């Protein structure tokens, strides 16, 4: 039984009845797959598991089982610690996930002889001694809305996606709701921008809809250049149709003529899967002229980034789409007034737009019941640095940091102790274990210099020198500065110089005041978001670990032995 690309037989849908027919077909096909007598084997393939040999394992499984079972290439499920994994559903049994699996383990796993590798079942029920995956601490505390298809559907199959509810919200917006009603749901849901800003999406959409000019555009910002965030990559690899549907709904609700998705060049697999999703949607007539006979037209373009962090800033991103250097400009005019090609443009983050289909289907009230008073819904979180379990998780807003770090991610591995956790990518300060009772939402971390931002956290332990760490992050901002405005262009190199002075043992106590003064200038005078937050991690580290900075200066000692000042190790200079 060779599993061919399932959607090759699909043809253009010309009316709403065509769509409903396809929806029913897809659901039947999906139910037959799982309730029938076939053995279904799925291998989780995402960038993180490819690096660990998931493709080789998929090939092995195909070679051995292609004649007797349905073999599927699904995406990763966010749990990096169990990759690469194989899921096997035998007739009459629950789907069981095995991982991490090596190539040598594959025959044993396929023969059903390796229950020692079983992690859990993808079901509410146990299978023999194997408990449901949802009882594992990594999954127990998650609320999976955006990621509920991750590791479940084949990302390349539009039928799988439709069977799991994709384009139902789009259908509602096309035929059952007015623009005002759709935007009202988003406003009621109070979904706030997931890219870091936290600006309510509904307000943005409303001004986009009211903008008089034509054409208008919607841009999805899928450029997460931060060196420790990969939530959008996970979404693109796991469920590209969800993102596409979100963008298309935004296009209809705002009356936009064309949707864009600007994807960072860092994730080729995500780009490949998203392009496939767009091609399929176009072939089915979900994109194009007279969508499903509704009389509405939507065009779509995919653009990819070239590895410039600054292009995550909305105005820089638009310049990058227009084929020039991605350098931000002053606002006003805001992008909803003058964006791409000087047309009104609504720009949202990927994760924000991925929330939209569920909001349209289930209503804004439902969404607003999730999360905290001011931060609604769920949030994707990622962890890096030393940790027992790595991965992408989706949790309800308001979970405490301690629960996230210690229960979901399992805390520090043996032999490591927490020194702190860096928050908000490279745009915010660290928190210490003393603050682990603080809830995770958009506002609670702000008094601590911390930021929820894009939900990327980095554990660091006692072996990390905070001065060197601060230098690393400041050097990152120096490298990524677009060089347009002076405070950022000259301020960040100046900060790196001061930090180097301290690292080499030539610092003075006045340097600490100088750091604060220079940082204040950069924060207050820079043009764009990158410059305005560039010194924040440094200030956060300085506030939290001032004693360690002082030890470098006063005692001439780097407590961890990282900095050149320490004789215990040869001089290290951080890369630019």
């Amino acid at each position: 039984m060779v599993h061919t690309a399932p959607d090759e037989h699909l043809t253009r849908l010309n009316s709403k009845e065509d769509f409903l027919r396809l929806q029913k077909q897809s659901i039947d096909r999906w139910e037959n797959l799982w309730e029938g007598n076939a053995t279904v084997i799925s291998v989780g393939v995402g960038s993180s598991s490819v690096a660990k040999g998931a493709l080789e394992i998929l090939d092995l499984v195909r070679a051995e089982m292609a004649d007797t079972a349905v073999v599927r290439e699904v995406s990763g499920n966010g749990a990096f610690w169990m990759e690469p994994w194989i899921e096997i559903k035998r007739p009459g049994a629950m789907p069981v996930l095995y991982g991490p699996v090596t190539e040598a383990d594959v025959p044993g796993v396929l023969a059903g002889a390796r229950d020692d590798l079983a992690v859990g079942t993808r079901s509410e029920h146990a299978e023999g001694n194997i408990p449901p995956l949802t009882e594992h601490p990594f999954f127990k505390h998650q609320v999976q809305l955006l990621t509920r298809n991750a590791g479940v559907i084949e990302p390349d199959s539009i039928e799988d996606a439709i069977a799991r509810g994709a384009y139902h919200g789009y259908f509602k917006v096309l035929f059952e709701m007015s623009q005002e009603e759709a935007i009202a749901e988003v406003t009621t849901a109070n979904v706030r921008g997931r890219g870091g800003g936290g600006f309510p999406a509904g307000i943005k959409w409303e001004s986009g809809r009211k903008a008089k000019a034509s054409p208008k555009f919607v841009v999805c910002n899928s450029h997460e250049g931060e060196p420790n965030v990969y939530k959008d990559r996970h979404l693109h690899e796991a469920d590209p149709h969800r993102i596409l549907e979100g963008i298309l709904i935004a296009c209809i609700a705002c009356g936009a003529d064309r949707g864009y998705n600007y994807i960072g060049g860092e994730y080729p697999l995500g780009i490949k899967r998203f392009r496939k999703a767009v091609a399929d949607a176009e072939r089915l007539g979900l994109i194009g002229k007279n969508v499903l006979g509704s009389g509405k037209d939507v065009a779509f373009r995919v653009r990819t980034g070239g590895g410039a962090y600054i292009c995550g800033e909305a105005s820089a991103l638009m310049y990058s789409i227009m084929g020039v250097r991605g350098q931000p400009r002053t606002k006003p005019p805001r992008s909803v007034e003058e964006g791409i090609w000087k047309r009104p443009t609504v720009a949202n983050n990927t994760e924000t737009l991925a929330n939209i289909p569920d909001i349209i289907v289930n209503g804004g009230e439902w969404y607003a019941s999730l999360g905290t008073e001011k931060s609604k819904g769920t949030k994707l979180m990622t962890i890096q640095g030393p940790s027992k379990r790595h991965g992408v998780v989706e949790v309800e807003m308001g979970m405490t940091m301690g629960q996230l770090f210690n229960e979901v991610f399992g805390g520090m591995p043996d032999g490591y102790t927490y020194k702190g956790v860096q928050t908000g990518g490279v745009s915010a300060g660290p928190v210490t274990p003393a603050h682990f009772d603080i809830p995770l939402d958009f506002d609670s971390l702000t008094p601590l210099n911390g930021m929820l931002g894009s939900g990327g956290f980095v554990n660091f332990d006692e072996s990390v020198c905070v001065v060197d760490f601060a230098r690393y992050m400041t050097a990152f901002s120096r490298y990524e500065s677009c060089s347009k405005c002076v405070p950022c262009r000259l301020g960040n190199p100046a900060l790196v110089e001061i930090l180097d002075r301290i690292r080499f043992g030539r610092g003075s106590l006045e340097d600490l005041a100088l750091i604060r003064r220079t940082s204040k200038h950069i924060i207050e005078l820079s043009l764009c978001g990158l410059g305005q937050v560039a010194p924040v991690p440094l200030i956060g580290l300085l506030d939290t670990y001032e004693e360690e900075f002082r030890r470098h200066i006063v005692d001439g000692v780097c407590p961890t032995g990282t900095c050149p000042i320490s004789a215990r190790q040869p001089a290290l200079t951080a890369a630019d």
Partner: protein
Amino acid sequence: MAQSEQTHAVRPVPAPFTGRQEIDLDVVREMMSHFKYDDFEEAQELILAALQEVNEHYGWVSPEAAAVVAEHLGTSTTRVFALLSFYADFRTEPRGHHHLLVCHGVSCYVMGSQKLVQALRDDYGIEDGDTTPDEQLSVQVVNGCLGVCDRSPVVKIDDEFVGHVTPESLNDLLQRAIVGREAMLAQEETNGSHSTR
């Protein structure tokens, strides 16, 4: 640590060579013929994508290739070069026979990627973007993230990810890659095959 040692033992480096390549302008012209546009605005939106395709195929973009791109999209070479020099993914010089990406994301930093960068500087005399004088190795330090954070620090040599790298294992890896390629070339010579690499 045990995992990385196992990876080393099981799979010999090198993986397929990405190789050092001269740019064939006819191939670039052929690539460009797939970039169709209706108006000047759309042509401009395609510059970045066109350059990415050349860069992906050859590992770098030469001034001549940039001129072909500019001509096809009705813009100036200067404009094209403005993009090449701004976006970090582009190289304007050919790569070495082996191309090494060193992940320098926060996770890899915390786990010691800086020592790898330093080792490359000390042992091979090369920094981010450089190629060794014997053209064996080029290096790119990735300011973003290669996405294998649970095995940090991570490097990618040619098509192969290697995790939990130390300066010693990095040196070992590079030496085996270089020796492996020479052995393969010698093998090809005795077999009489004509490889352009």
